[in-house]
């Protein structure tokens, strides 16, 4: 069954988009900034993983955890160096700074690791067979990671003290400061998670797309489309929207030639922004500011 096979690859694609989209969601909620380097963080994560593998680290699960940790550290530095200093310099400054870091990631990555994508080992080769359907262990792992991240984030944001502090800081930084929440720490956590999850996605997706290469901006656009489809302001919406986009994109390839999928998704992004800017899970109708 072609449809089922495409569903499997679509879910995997959507899961990767979801990890990118969650970063958009966290950073947007906390700072109102949409980070144009979000997709390039994935590439950087994959490339850091590649270096670890080349140094002889053969347990890919360990590589993934190290990259996640490195991404978290990089995320804190990212906020401190790129985003925070632009505060108070007008609305264009933050966007321009993220475009600047996109150039640094994309071209710096090419200097350090070379311009072409490199093969990358999966965490676990092989596949399970369910009747006619083959599901790779890598696919299962990616789904499990996204599920765990989704549940973990929902629990963190909804139940834990830190998570509630993050929600409060995102909703009204001034009021949050007044009740004793450390807003800049909340901000750092959001950026750390955004970079960490993207970097993790980089290691997970590298066996499929190769590590490195020039897919960063494409991932930025796809992840953002997924996030907006579900509703950028809602954690659940972002996850569902991104997975839905992955599945739709994959199934679309059954109907039309593959090369037409990308332009259609890009036009869909514009239509979504114009027609339903709050996405499928938007709470109320409002103009995007």
């Amino acid at each position, binding site marked *: 069954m072609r449809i089922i096979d495409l569903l499997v690859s679509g879910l995997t694609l959507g899961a990767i988009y979801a990890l990118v989209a969650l970063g958009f969601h966290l950073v947007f909620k906390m700072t*109102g*900034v*949409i980070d*144009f380097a979000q997709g390039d963080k994935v590439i950087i994560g994959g490339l850091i993983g590649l270096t670890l593998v080349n140094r002889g680290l053969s347990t890919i699960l360990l590589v993934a955890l190290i990259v996640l940790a490195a991404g978290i550290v990089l995320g804190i530095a990212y906020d401190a*160096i*790129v985003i925070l*200093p*632009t505060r108070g*310099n*007008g*609305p*264009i*400054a*933050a*966007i*321009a*700074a993220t*475009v*600047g*870091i*996109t*150039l*640094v990631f*994309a*071209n*710096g990555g*090419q*200097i350090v690791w070379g*311009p072409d994508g490199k093969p990358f080992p999966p965490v676990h080769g092989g596949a399970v067979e369910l009747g006619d359907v083959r599901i790779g262990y890598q696919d299962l792992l990616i789904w499990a990671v996204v599920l765990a991240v989704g549940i973990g984030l929902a629990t963190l944001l909804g139940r834990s003290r830190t998570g509630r502090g993050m929600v409060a800081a995102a909703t009204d930084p001034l009021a949050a400061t007044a009740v004793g929440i450390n807003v800049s720490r909340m901000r750092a956590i959001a950026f750390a998670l955004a970079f960490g999850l993207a970097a993790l996605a980089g290691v997970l997706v590298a066996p499929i797309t190769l590590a490195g290469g*020039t897919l960063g*901006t*494409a991932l930025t*656009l796809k992840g*953002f489309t997924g996030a907006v489809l579900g509703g950028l302001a809602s954690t659940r919406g972002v996850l569902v929207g991104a997975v839905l986009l992955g599945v739709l994109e994959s199934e679309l390839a059954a109907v039309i030639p593959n*090369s*037409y999928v*990308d*332009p259609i998704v*890009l*036009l869909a*992004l*514009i239509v979504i*922004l*114009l027609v339903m*800017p709050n996405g499928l899970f938007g709470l109320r109708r409002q*103009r*995007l*500011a």
Partner: protein
Amino acid sequence: MPDTASPDTAPPGRLPPYRALTGRAGRHLGPTVVAAVLLIGFAFTNPGATDLALGVNIGVAAIASVGLTMTIGGAGQLALGQAGFMAVGAYGTAYLMLDREMAFLPALVLGVLLALVIGVLVGYIALRLRGHYLAMATLAVGTAIHAFLMLPGPLGGANGYAPIPFPEIFGHRLLDPRDQYLLVAVTLILVLLGSRWLLSARMGRELAALRDDEVAARAAGVNITARKVQVFAISAGIGALAGGVNAPLQTAIDPSLFSTAVSLQLFVMVILGGLGNIYGAVLGAALVTWLISEVPGGGSWALTVLGMVVIAFMALLPDGLAGLGRLARTARSRWVRRRPGAGAVITEVPE
């Protein structure tokens, strides 16, 4: 035609309207004349073919980034898809010249018109989206145009489109590299003149009002809808002009010349030059293009460093290179002209 000379709009105590107009035109012509002398003069310093080719690249990038400055700096609307409009102009002109055997100038005009139409559509998108969302949507437009050109079809897909005949203007075929450079230089000068005129006329003031406070501008009677759509159309048209002039000079074009990376480079040129300053955009275009071609490593090193420079600028000097001058002026007035009233804050009205 903007009604700048209407007597009831002239504030009291200023020059009479007709004098103000001449004074303004004269003042604004200065930098353009300097740019024209430099650009045309370069062609007569006996430059080699490599230098002229670099000059063509710089000129084309400068035209496109002046167009982008109109939207980003002039109207404060973040657009990140300028390379897409260059592609429309380039492919439009090339298709009409090669497949339809049209002459260069009419083909160029039609290519620019096509981009104007697409620009109007993007302008309508800009009516509903702001800030980051508009930036993402325009990035998607540029990337979508690139993706459409990658499709196999009459325009050649990823393999490119060739051979485009050299342009012929009034019976003179531009085969000499110097003539080709002069074509780009003259186009750039005309674009500078036109943009300067638009920005200093009523249109530019309304755009600045729209940029600084949309609600206040609307309250003051600025037609927001018309201005936004117009500025996106003009910006797209200028971008298409850059692409359309360049395409026949290169004889072959392919989608990689108009990728998202090129859009981001054009954005960087505008940012470095200082938002809203068309001469700054020309300097930014020259700097970025020159660095990419001269620094070894196929542009990787140059773009990495430029990305860092953009980050530093956004943290320290959000006005770009133009901000350096303002900073110097502030410092001078603070240290040199210490006299009564020197501490007053002088609010400059950006031109």
